[in-house]
């Protein structure tokens, strides 16, 4: 294909992405160095916003909460996703039904799913979960006002929402594992446990890495599900980074746009660092193709 044709075909998409992604992003970077309000030009303040963000205890708590939830969720998703995918891989006729049911929580708007999820735990909505827990252990859990139970609730919801994704990608990976490989392992005397641990998992590590990457990226940005799940997020210390940005830079007329933008920039840097191995993979593929 000639260069002229390439740019002609790519141009409309480039205009949209340039105008509505690149320019806004540049504006965010500019704002992060300014004291600024919506609709008015800002004044340059250097790295003051970054200093303010990094020394703000509330931001520290939000970052800690977000990272802890991200790490725990990612580990649970990998383990559970692998187990469920292995199970579904054994199904034959009932597979479409099971996949269909599993997909619902992923396809539904995150916020709507979280609303439904929160009703199971909220005592004002019947308190089904607390009834169950009370039946077995006799205790009541404060799912919405106690920091740790609320974090557990958030993690449970995130796992519920993202499990179909993790499971499907791992399932695709499992289907790429040659049957001969498993047979060879069995002949060599490996038990099921050893086969999974030292044959199958190493074979699909690329897929597992991919699931890890996407999960980390998506959970670091969590926002929607916390609206119903953690209505008192700020006061109990369960605020996510994106909720913090929202509350300083947008909610209820908040105008600390510079601070919010600085936090966005810090988050972008974090995400870019994590993307490096994946980007190297794309360039390797591009090189191999040509």
């Amino acid at each position, binding site marked *: 294909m000639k260069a002229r*044709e390439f740019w002609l*075909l790519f141009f*409309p*998409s*480039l205009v949209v*992405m340039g105008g*509505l*992604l690149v320019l*806004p*992003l540049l*504006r*965010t970077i500019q*704002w992060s160095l300014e004291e600024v309000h919506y*609709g008015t030009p800002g004044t340059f303040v250097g790295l003051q916003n970054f200093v303010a963000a990094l020394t703000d205890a509330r931001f520290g708590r939000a970052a800690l909460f977000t990272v802890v939830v991200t790490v725990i969720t990612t580990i649970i998703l990998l383990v559970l996703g692998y187990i469920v995918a292995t199970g579904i*891989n*054994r*199904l034959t006729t009932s*597979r479409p039904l099971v*996949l*269909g049911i599993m*997909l*619902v929580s992923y*396809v*539904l*708007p*995150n*916020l709507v799913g979280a*609303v*439904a999820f929160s*009703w*199971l735990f909220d005592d*004002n909505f*019947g308190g089904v979960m607390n*009834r169950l827990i009370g039946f077995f252990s006799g205790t009541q859990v404060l799912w919405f006002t106690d920091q740790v139970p609320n974090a557990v609730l958030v993690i449970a919801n995130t796992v*519920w929402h993202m499990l179909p*994704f993790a499971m*499907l990608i791992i*399932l695709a*990976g499992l*289907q790429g594992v040659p*049957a001969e490989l498993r*047979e060879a392992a069995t002949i060599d005397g490996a038990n099921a446990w050893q086969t999974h641990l030292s044959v199958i998992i190493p074979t699909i590590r690329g897929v597992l890495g*991919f699931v890890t990457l*996407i999960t980390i990226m*998506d959970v*670091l940005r969590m926002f*929607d599900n916390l609206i119903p799940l953690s209505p008192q997020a700020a006061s109990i210390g369960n605020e996510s980074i994106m909720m913090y940005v*929202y509350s300083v*830079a*947008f909610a209820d007329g908040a105008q600390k746009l510079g601070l*919010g*933008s600085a936090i*966005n920039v810090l*988050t972008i840097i974090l*995400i870019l660092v994590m*993307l490096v191995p994946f980007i190297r993979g*794309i*360039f*390797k*593929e591009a090189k191999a193709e040509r």
Partner: protein
Amino acid sequence: MTLPDLDLSTRAVTTGRPAVRGRAGTRPRRPVITGILLAILCVVVLSPFIWMTLSVTKPTDVAFANPPVLGGYEPTLKAFVDLWETTYFADYLVNTIVVAVVSTVIALAIGIPAAYALSRYPSYVSALLLVLALIFRALPRFAVVLPMYDISRALGIYDTTFALAIALVAINQPFTIWLLRNFFADIPRELDEAAMIDGCTRIGMLRRVMIPLMGPGILTAGIFVFLFAFQEYLTALVLTDTSSKTVPVFIATQLGQTLPMLQQAGAASMLLTIPVFVIAFIAQKYLVAGLSDGAVKG
């Protein structure tokens, strides 16, 4: 980590084979226990919806009673009727659908040629642009949405369905291109050349040869872009106010209200859940392919 790992399911869709199939040589070991465990998992996965359905169809006075009332009441659809009659739900639903349809059409119209170009242009430019697409896909949403809010106010298009739709086109464009490009990459280049030797122009070839061949790929991308627009909460929250509010934003605002309105929020959630159930079953093949291949939610 390489992309070819994930190519599997694209081919499954484009060649019409079932997207997921049993692997030869798998011993069906203890399928009964696996089946029971998965059945329990399915019930757990669906439990929030089951509970919500029960709560929404109860009369208001017992809907959220604690301990829960499980029988002895007359099921009712009053919450749905109230939702329809006392709120602007119908308007919000229309907004949501308009935004989703408009953004899907525009996203495909500009995404298809771009993805095709990327799959055929033999240079580092193409790899570089894909990397940029991936990075933009990974950005925290507020980093682009807050400036969009400022710009849309300045241009006087704030709180219009068009502004929201075009914003979502841009936000989902990296994913759209990425997914479509993977599908195009599976179509042999010899086909392009043969068509062009026969006298087609590049654009004519794209229209007459590629797009018909890409049917399943385009459908997959279309379903995803539609779903992303339909699911979007954060962007709609920032870019809309009253006249172009979407259903997820409406549901979120109802949460802080009193009991009958909460039941209406539940009814609204149910109304969104039902089409999603249908999509999860009817379009399963395409969802599975898109997830494993584009694999990146916006």
